[in-house]
């Protein structure tokens, strides 16, 4: 198992290198200029000096090599320094955002908590709704619960979050005034009242995203369960006298879990990327919003680093899914 993990991790390195190069090349080919949003009262010579100071005018390979070194050497050292308060001494340059002219990683660290709070909770809530709903829908196929569940997941899956999000804001913020329409990233949970405020400001985005996440997952769970409930071993289990609960959860659900786990694991990077729109609508200044504003400002170091982190998440989630298969199904061997 340990050897398998090591082998897979090492195999991921060339993949990630290739991905980072492709992202960098695409960004380089895409037109854009970090000074294009400046008012025209700033003359062209000043813009040119500004671009020069950012390193915008360096050649492609110089910039890529610099970014790669910063990403793999300088940033990890800076992380260690910050965690332990040590100073490694040598002079290094961290990846600098072109928009804020500050280290990209500091911004990402600032943005991570709200993204994890909202996306993480909606993701878990989505699973908590989808899996039981899928199981019940399969077990009581064509029942009222199944019909309603199908309807709800169709709605959740086919109506985009930018629409449900706006409807939620109009109903719950504008008409009813229950929830704030923007998210306070500086809010700290210190007592019960502030915890309640945190719940209130998270309620709408979490509900909208959880609906979206649960929709696909509940359909997968349902179909996978249906398939397994018709199998011979289920009949055998019932014949042995296993109670319905055991049949359903230990036999059918466990065997249906492989496609469900695949979907959940592969959704992990998706929740970061997919929440970009939701973050924009509910004004949660998380990673998705950072990516959008960086793209608008042609802040290439920020875009590059964020997309690369998403790529790492995809590779890591794949690995996680593979490992989970082995835990769920002892027939799968890692050699």
């Amino acid at each position, binding site marked *: 198992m340990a050897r398998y993990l090591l082998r897979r991790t090492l195999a991921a390195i060339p993949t990630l290198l290739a991905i980072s190069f492709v992202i960098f090349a695409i960004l380089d080919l895409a*037109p854009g200029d970090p000074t294009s949003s400046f008012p025209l009262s700033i003359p062209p010579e000043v813009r040119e000096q500004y671009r020069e100071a950012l390193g915008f005018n360096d050649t492609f390979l110089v910039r890529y090599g610099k970014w790669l070194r910063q990403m793999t050497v300088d940033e990890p050292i800076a992380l260690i320094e910050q965690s332990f308060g040590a100073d490694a001494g040598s002079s290094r340059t961290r990846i600098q955002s072109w928009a804020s002219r500050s280290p990209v990683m500091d911004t990402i660290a600032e943005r991570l908590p709200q993204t994890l709070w909202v996306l993480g909770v909606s993701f878990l809530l989505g699973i908590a709704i989808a899996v039981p709903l899928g199981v019940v829908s399969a077990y009581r196929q064509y029942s009222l619960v199944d019909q309603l569940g199908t309807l709800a997941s169709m709605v959740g899956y086919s109506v985009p979050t930018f629409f449900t999000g706006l409807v939620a804001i109009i109903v719950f913020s504008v008409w009813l005034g229950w929830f704030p329409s923007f998210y306070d990233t500086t809010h700290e949970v210190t007592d019960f009242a502030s915890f309640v405020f945190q719940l209130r400001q998270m309620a709408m985005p979490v509900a909208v995203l959880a609906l979206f996440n649960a929709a696909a997952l509940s359909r997968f769970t349902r179909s996978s369960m249906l398939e397994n409930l018709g199998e011979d071993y289920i009949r055998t289990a019932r014949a042995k006298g296993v109670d319905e609960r055991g049949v359903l959860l230990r036999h059918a659900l466990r065997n249906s879990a492989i496609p469900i786990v695949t979907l959940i694991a592969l959704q992990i990077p998706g929740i970061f990327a997919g929440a970009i729109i939701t973050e924009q609508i509910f004004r949660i200044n998380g990673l998705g919003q950072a990516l959008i504003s960086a793209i608008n400002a042609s802040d290439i170091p920020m875009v590059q680093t964020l997309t690369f982190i998403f790529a790492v998440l995809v590779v890591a989630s794949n690995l996680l899914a593979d490992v989970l298969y082995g835990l769920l199904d002892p027939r799968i061997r890692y050699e």
Partner: protein
Amino acid sequence: MLNRPGATRTTTALAFLLTLAACGGAPPGGAGSGAGQTATLLYWQAPTTLNPYMSGGEKESHAASLVIEPLAEYDENGELVPALAAGIPTLGNGGLSADLTAITWTLEPGVLWSDGTPLTADDVVFTWRYCTTPGGGCAQASHFEGVETVEALDAGTVRVTFDGPKPFPFGPFVSSLSPILQQAQFGECMGADAVQCSDENFRPVGTGPYRVVAFRTNDTVELERNPRYRGIDHGLPFFDEIVIKGGGDAAAAARSVLQLGEADYAWNLQVEPEILERMESRGSGHVVSAFSTSVEHLVLNQTNPDRALGELRSEYANGTNPHPFLTDPAVGRALSLAIDREALVTVGYGEGGRPTCNIWPAAPASRNNDECLEQDIGLANRLLDEAGIVDTDGDGIRERAGVPLRIVYQTSTNTVRQTTQELIKGWWAEIGVATELKNVDSSVFFGSDLASPDTYGKFYADIQMYTNMAAGRNAEAYLGQWRTDEIPGAANSFLGQNTGRFHSGELDALHSELQRTGDPEQRDALIVALNDLLVQSYSVIPLIYRGSVSAHGGDIQGIRMSAWDSELWNIETWTRSP
């Protein structure tokens, strides 16, 4: 949270206190202020830094203006008012040298930085060196153009010497774009080291009414009252805390302030006028606008952009490559008369726009070009007929000397601009001009990519549309953009600002005269003359005098929105009525 009742007072009392402050009198301290009150300002595009020298954007300079201050700032009428200076230097008070080559500023005595150290003339000198040290990429370097040296005469006096006569000496250290930085804080941040100073850039030590508590780039700025602010004994500023919050879009920000009352101020509301009006009518908030020099205008290419010319496409080439019909003022005048500017305002701009026929729309505004305010398609058609530009081959498009009036009309991608394009295309069709529309993403259009054929500098089209504005009140630098030596081309990597390739010896001479003239009345006359020359050449067609549009809650008092400077320039006198 936002509507907490606090100790309040009337604006009259405030005005009284201000008068006392201005007179240098010592009113009784501890006047009431907004005990515990917080104002929330929505900047949907949030500030990325609090050092305006590190960013060209206006959102950064607005947010920074709460913390760091210039020597003088512009009020809502574009008049200079002292900030850190004791007064505005003029020829009359001896602040300007008679030969116009030097300006001497006296600092307001007793001003302290928020860390308790005194502000001195050395800080002012330092700010100049900070922005002009090579390698730092100072975004406001143009404010220091023509500055030969800045020297501290004593701790409270600073003299700026220019390399020649400078009738407009208010570039350096004036407006929120050129504030004074503290030498003690930024001393290590010169030139290429500027990028290592993100802590300094995010939390500058200032002299303004507020100091930074927390800064999250592109997200939130939290500020609290600066206990060493010079107005503190007069009960200024009113609000204890200010939160500047970013994210979302303009419509959501407008809704938060106008309809929901969740926030107190929202900046830059580029929202369809109809939607904004509806929001305003349903809530207690108000929409406000302010104007400076921004004009949305058409630029008529004076050179030939024909693709067949290859290298010579849109090149000035010393006047040997003229446009086949746009250099004819009759054509330009007809194109201008065909446009219904009032309709453009109603559809796209609302309170944020007014029809204009001038490229310099602020005082001293010319009254000589008002013909264009009324759409007159009949007159436009007659003008073209009289000039012999008629449809000879019956295809509905007029020809001038055999060349049909077919126009490629480009601008940046933006819903208001595309609507404007469509409307104008329709009107031009009525006078026998065929128009092909093109729009380019703004990061490309306003970019500098030499490999891209779509930048506004290359101008591979017949007409393009964008907004241009002066830096502060500097008409001289602004009108200098149309000089012949500002024409972009391959030779200067397309860096000139005269994108229309307009060339006129008369304009160059008038502008040189403006650079030498110190008398305010003569200067005004020259500005009007330059404006009229440009507009009547029809190398530019002004369309809309554009203002900034913001909104504030119904209970916020004291807003004097200035488009010449930071909209928040007088935030210390904002109050909340009970």
